[in-house]
C-alpha cells in the first residue's frame, strides 16, 4: 500500500485530530502498514524503541516478567489504541514486552525519524508530547487502580 492511501486512515483517527496539515503529511510519510500473526513478538523489553503503533485490528498484550509469577499481562490494547510511548522518551528503550494475542493489523510509525523532526520543529514536538503524555498519565492512573486491587476482599 502506498503512503498516499494511508492519509485518510490516519486523518480519521481521534489520536491525530488537531494536527496541522503540514505535520499530518509528515506523519503519513513516516507510517507503514504492518501485520502480525497470533503470538508474534511486537517488541521486547530493553530493545531500542524506534516505533509506535496504531492498532487497526486485533489485540496486543503488554507483558512484564515477574520472577515469582512468570510472565504477567498488565494491559491489552486493541482497535484504535496506541501502542508504545518509549520512542519519545530517553533512553528510547522498551519498558515491556508486547506480543499479539490475535492476528493484528497496525500502522507502524518511524519514531526515530519523528524524533528528529520533533527536535527540528518544536511545534510538532509539543503536539506529540501532549498526546503521549496523556497516554502515559492514563496508563499511570490505570496502574494505580490495578495496584489498589479494587476488587479485592478488603478494598
Amino acid at each position, binding site marked *: 500500500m502506498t503512503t498516499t492511501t494511508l492519509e485518510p486512515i490516519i486523518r480519521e483517527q481521534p489520536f491525530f485530530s488537531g494536527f496541522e496539515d503540514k505535520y499530518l503529511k509528515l506523519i503519513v510519510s513516516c507510517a507503514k502498514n504492518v501485520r502480525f500473526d497470533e503470538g508474534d513478538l511486537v517488541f521486547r523489553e530493553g530493545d531500542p524503541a524506534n516505533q509506535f503503533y496504531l492498532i487497526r485490528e486485533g*489485540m496486543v*498484550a*503488554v507483558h512484564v516478567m515477574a520472577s515469582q*509469577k*512468570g*510472565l*504477567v*499481562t*498488565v*494491559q*491489552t490494547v*486493541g*482497535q*484504535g489504541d496506541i501502542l508504545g510511548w518509549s520512542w519519545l522518551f530517553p533512553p528510547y528503550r522498551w519498558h515491556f514486552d508486547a506480543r499479539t*494475542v*490475535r492476528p493484528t493489523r497496525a500502522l507502524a510509525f518511524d519514531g526515530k525519524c519523528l524524533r528528529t523532526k520533533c527536535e527540528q520543529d518544536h511545534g510538532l514536538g509539543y503536539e506529540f508530547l501532549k498526546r503521549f503524555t496523556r497516554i502515559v498519565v492514563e496508563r499511570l*492512573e*490505570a496502574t494505580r*487502580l*490495578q495496584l*489498589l*486491587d*479494587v*476488587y*479485592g*476482599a*478488603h*478494598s
Partner: protein
Amino acid sequence: MAPTLEISEPKAAADPMLPVPCRIRRVRNETADTFTWELQPADGPARFAFQPGQFNMLYVFGVGEVPISISGDPADTQSFRHTTRAVGVVTRAMRQLRAGDVLGVRGPFGSAWPIEAAAGRDVVIVAGGIGLAPLRPALCRLLAQRRRYGRIVLLYGARTPQDILFPHELERWRGKFDLEVQVTVDRSADTWRGNVGVVTTLIPCAPFEPANAVALVCGPEVMMRYTVRELQRRGIAADRIHVSMERNMKCAIGFCGHCQYGPAFICKDGPIFPFDRVESIFGKAEV
C-alpha cells in the same frame, strides 16, 4: 418500600423488622469466595416480587444480619437468589450453610435501577467484581423487553480470570447479536486471551450514543469514581448515570441512621442514586 415477601400462612411479613424464615434450595459456588443461593420461604410457597437493584437483609441465626442485593431474574417469582462474597463474620458464616438450611430474610428494600426510564435509550452497564450481581436482574429485565431499548452494552471488570462472576451466562450474553459484552481483568497469566486492564479502559470505545444513553454502575466505590469520570468524559450527563452505594446497615427501613450518606439514608433513599444527587459527597472519606 413495603416488603412484599408474601407468605401464604401465616402472614408474617407485615412487620418489616421481622425476618421471614427461608430455606436454601440450592447453593452454587461461583468463584473461590463467592456463592449463589436460591431461596424459598421455609413454610410453603410464596410469591416473591422485587425490582432490579433492591436488596434483602439476610439473618444468619446467632451470627448477624447483612444487606445483600437480589441477583435473580425478576421474572422468577417462585424463588429468589443472592450472590454473596465471603468477606467477614456474617458472610463467612453464610458460606458454611448448605441446601436445606434456614435463615431469616427481610425485604426487599431500597430503590431500583431506572429500567422504565431508560426505555428508548442506549443502556450502558458497568460492573466491577461482585458488582455484577446487583446488575444481573437489571440485565435480565432489559433483555426480556429488548425491543424497548437502543443498544445495550455490558462492560465488566474482574480481578483475574478466575474471579469472573457468572462466566457461562456472560458467554451466553456475548453470543447474542443485540447485546455487546466486554470483559476485562486486572491481571492475568499467559493463558487468558481477553482484555487486560481496568474496566474504565473499555469505556472510550464502547458502542453507545452518549447523548441518549443511561448508565448503570455498580462496584467498589473507587472503581465507580473513575468509571463515572470516564462516562462523563464520553458525554453522559450526571443525572443519567446511576450508581449503587454501600454502607453498613441495621434496620434497613430508615429508622436507625446507620446507613446515613450525607443527607440521605442508603437503605430507603438508595442504594441506587442518580449521580447528580450524590455528586457533591461522592468519594469523600468522611461521608
